[in-house]
């Protein structure tokens, strides 16, 4: 093998490795980005499921605490990652909090939560205002289906 051939092979090897390394790095970074995005989307499900199960099974104090924790988390999440809207979930959580207060006969607190629920829900339905009872009916119906 001549000196020129050796140099040519070596150069080809270097170029091949560099290109391969570049594409491999790019693909891995892309995969890690996607994986991070998916984890960010799905991590809140732990609190969502917990809040719902507590709402169905726990006493007023504990169910209220779980729903409020989830609502506060979602509001914070919405602020930090505005590209991942949580408005629908927030509307549902506040409606459940209102339903919980209805069951405990705390009408004023229930109305406060419904104001928040409507605030988060309105943009989704394109401006059409839903009444408190319509929203409560929808959430109750959804919960009955999940049973």
């Amino acid at each position, binding site marked *: 093998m001549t000196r020129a051939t050796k140099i040519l092979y070596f150069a080809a090897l270097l170029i091949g490795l560099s290109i391969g390394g570049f594409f491999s790095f790019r693909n891995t970074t892309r995969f890690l980005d996607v994986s991070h995005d998916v984890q*960010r989307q*799905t*991590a809140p*499900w*732990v609190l969502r499921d917990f809040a719902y*199960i*507590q709402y169905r*099974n726990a006493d007023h104090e504990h169910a209220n605490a779980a729903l409020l924790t989830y609502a506060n988390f979602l509001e914070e*999440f919405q602020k930090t990652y505005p590209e991942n809207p949580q408005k629908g979930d927030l509307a549902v959580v506040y409606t459940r909090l209102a339903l919980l207060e209805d069951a405990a006969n705390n009408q004023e607190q229930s109305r406060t939560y419904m104001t928040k629920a409507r605030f988060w829900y309105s943009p989704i339905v394109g401006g059409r205002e839903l009444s408190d009872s319509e929203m409560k009916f929808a959430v109750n119906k959804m919960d009955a289906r999940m049973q």
Partner: protein
Amino acid sequence: MESTLSRLNEVQYLQMFAATISSDKKLGEKYLLKNIGALEDIERKSDLQEIKPAIDFNLGRAYVYAALMEEQAHNNGQASRYMKSAQNLFQSLGWSDSTEETLKTVATRELDKWRIPPQTKESGK
């Protein structure tokens, strides 16, 4: 926010893993206790008080999976110890009904989501 998300990710991963391995007897026996240990570690270390009840809930559910597994293996003493641990946790979470039956129903509902249906001849074609 990032630390909460990271902790929730760990819990979610362990929860899914627990539910998946519990539907398989051999895998359950091998890994479920390790899984419970990992959840107990997170629960002990957790600096995030606001998500501690959610961790307790997942730990409680894992105890019920372990109780079901021990029951199937006819280790009734161990099964009732796991069930008792689960009941203590669910009571601390404000459950008025934390009877064995209710907890088993909640756990089985979750397990069913992860159970792979047996393949029939028709579906295999």
